[in-house]
């Protein structure tokens, strides 16, 4: 036991004395939370649009200023002919062009009907359809106002309630995702690399000839990363509660123990990678493509899993982060207890046992 503790101490010194790495490892979750929390929104606002006003009358001017006043649009340019539209789009800034035909006011006053054309740059389909929807809604509002809010007959109203996340904050779905990503990085990538590094530099040989059991050497390597992960989990949770106002609705104890379960799974995977590889670059490559990309892509936190074709949906089931993401979302935001997530917990535990067994089986005492 004393030997084991001194090995753990050695590993701590490794991490402690490489302050640049430590700084990044501890800073990463903070930067991610800030970027995801404040910079990335799927909301569309301040989009630059252009107006092609061939009529230039009191109506078009009012609609123009209504559009400009909304927080969704900034009118960035005035165009003068249809040809300008393509040129404006090709320059890249303008996302939508509002076209008023000639005689807009006259049509509206004499025939009671006039046309507005919205031309969207649909390179980004979602932004295009959102902008078109918003612009249409603003124009319709204006129309209602000039017809004095006369109610149309046979109207179906819709009333909407946003459950769990009334302000549609992105934080609710990304906080669990950032947790999964950071734990994966610290545990899988870093563990795999530190072990392989000792192999690459030849110091593994020195440790293998020591009286310490080989398996314990490797476990001693994992302990500091487990602790680092606990620090990261706490900083993510603190930031999300106090900076992003994302509440922890479920039991904190359950959340922490599930996180530790996931951390252990990641560590086991890191061990497995280290038993299979001899160079740091290969280890990194496997950790990135085998663990990190699937976590980002297939855990459901960046991209909705239901949208994916079935082969990807099948693969997503073997990604531990998917289950962890689900559990954290349920426990943290919906506030459910263990009874609702026992199945997912069991799956994660199964994965942990499987990965551990596999890496112990592959662990070689002898040098190649």
């Amino acid at each position, binding site marked *: 036991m004393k030997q084991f503790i001194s090995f753990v101490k050695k590993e701590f010194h490794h991490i402690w004395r490489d302050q640049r790495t430590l700084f990044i490892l501890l800073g990463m979750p903070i930067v991610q939370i800030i970027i995801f929390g404040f910079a990335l929104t799927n909301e569309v606002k301040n989009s630059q649009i252009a107006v092609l006003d061939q009529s230039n009358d009191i109506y078009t001017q009012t609609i123009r200023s209504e559009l400009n006043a909304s927080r969704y649009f900034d009118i960035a340019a005035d165009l003068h002919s249809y040809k300008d539209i393509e040129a404006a789009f090709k320059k890249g800034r303008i996302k939508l062009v509002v076209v008023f035909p000639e005689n807009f006011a006259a049509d509206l006053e004499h025939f009671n009907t006039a046309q507005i*054309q919205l031309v969207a740059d649909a390179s980004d389909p979602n932004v295009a359809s959102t902008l078109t929807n918003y612009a249409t809604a603003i124009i319709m509002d204006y129309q209602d106002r000039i017809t004095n809010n006369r109610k149309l007959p046979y109207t179906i109203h819709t009333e909407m309630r946003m459950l769990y996340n009334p302000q549609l904050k992105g934080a609710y779905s990304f906080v669990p995702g950032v947790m999964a990503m950071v734990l994966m990085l610290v545990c899988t990538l870093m563990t795999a690399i530190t072990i392989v590094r000792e192999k690459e530099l030849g110091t593994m040989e020195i440790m293998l000839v020591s009286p310490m059991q080989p398996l314990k050497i490797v476990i001693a390597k994992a302990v500091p990363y487990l602790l680092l992960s606990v620090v990261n989990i706490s900083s993510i949770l603190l930031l999300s509660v106090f900076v992003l106002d994302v509440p922890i609705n479920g039991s904190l104890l359950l959340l922490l123990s599930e996180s530790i379960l996931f951390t252990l799974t990641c560590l086991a995977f890191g061990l497995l990678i280290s038993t299979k590889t001899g160079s740091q670059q290969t280890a990194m490559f496997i950790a990135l493509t085998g663990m990190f990309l699937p976590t980002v892509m297939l855990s459901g936190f960046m991209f909705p899993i239901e949208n994916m074709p079935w082969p990807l949906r099948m693969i997503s089931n073997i990604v531990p982060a998917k289950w962890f993401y689900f559990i954290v979302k349920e426990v943290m935001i919906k506030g459910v207890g263990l009874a609702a997530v026992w199945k997912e917990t069991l799956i994660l535990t199964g994965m942990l046992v499987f990965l551990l067994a596999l890496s112990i089986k592959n662990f070689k005492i002898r040098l190649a």
Partner: protein
Amino acid sequence: MRTLRFLLQKEFRQVFRDPAILRMIFMMPAIQLLVLPWAADYEIKNIQLSVVDHDHSQYSRQLTNKITASGYFQLQDYSDSYTKAMHLVEKDEADLVLEIPADFEKKLVKENESTVFMAVNAINGVKANLGAAYLRSIVQDYNREVRLKWIQLPRFSPELQIAVTSSNWFNPSMNYKLFMVPGILVVLVTMVGSFLTSLNIVREKEIGTIEQINVTPVKKYHFILGKLIPFWVLGLLILTIGLGISWAAYGIVPLGSFWVIYVFSAVYLLAVLGLGLLISTYTGTQQQAMLLSFFMMMVFILLSGLYTSIDSMPGWAKAITSANPVTYFIDVMRMVVLKGSGFNDISRHILVMLGFAVGLNAWAVINYRKRS
């Protein structure tokens, strides 16, 4: 010149004899381009809907049929218990609940108006937003049909009406992959460029072979050029492979000219390689270099407008995006591939990128020391 040639020979040999790097060069493009666009599909479809129908009238059934026929929604459950529907939401089996009140049809016909209720699982904001918008527009469509049945509209509308028509340019079929693939291509080239350069140089430091080079008469610029040129060539090779895959797998052929893409990429790669070089001068071990490049790539990619629109970011984030080379390349890629922009349209981008290339490389060269 001769020195440089020998150095290049050495570097190319090193690259082509390292299975890890070769795997990275050929597998990364394949995995990223063949898998990522399928996963990164923000097109919202298959929204799980649970209908709570207290009315059981002809109208409520018509409305339900219309919604399920739209193709966006999958009817998960049709019941008359709100608690049951909420239970489905809790289990994540339903995203949206549409509740039709008991006197829906009667009220609509007799009192001229009626209300339906929607409850949206809003944990995933995008899905909630778009799903609710789709559902609302279907209800409005249905509303129009009902109105047409009850009142004959005269040919000249007595009420003032502004008709809004819309058209979508450059991507009329609203194909999300057309938008994502060029962006993913950029990420690919960037990752390979910066990761490989920084790791390669730091590896020589860590293993100690850099000492051997430092004691030879090889000049500083020889060494750096010898490192940069192979990865510059590799970057362009990967771009070509990537363009090939996106043509073969998705049928994406750039609308603009290949010249524009390659000229810009050539400049861009210089900037990215400079970044890799810079990282390597600040780090001593592969672990540090990897972590630092990873960290920077993450910030650059998230704040590049690849997934979310830059316009809606706050001021400080916008400032970072304009100091981020990845932003410019993604912009250029999308403009050239989707809209066919030419050199005139991207002249500003090229100038900025030249600035990045010169600045980053100069910084790296100044910072590189032959002494340890």
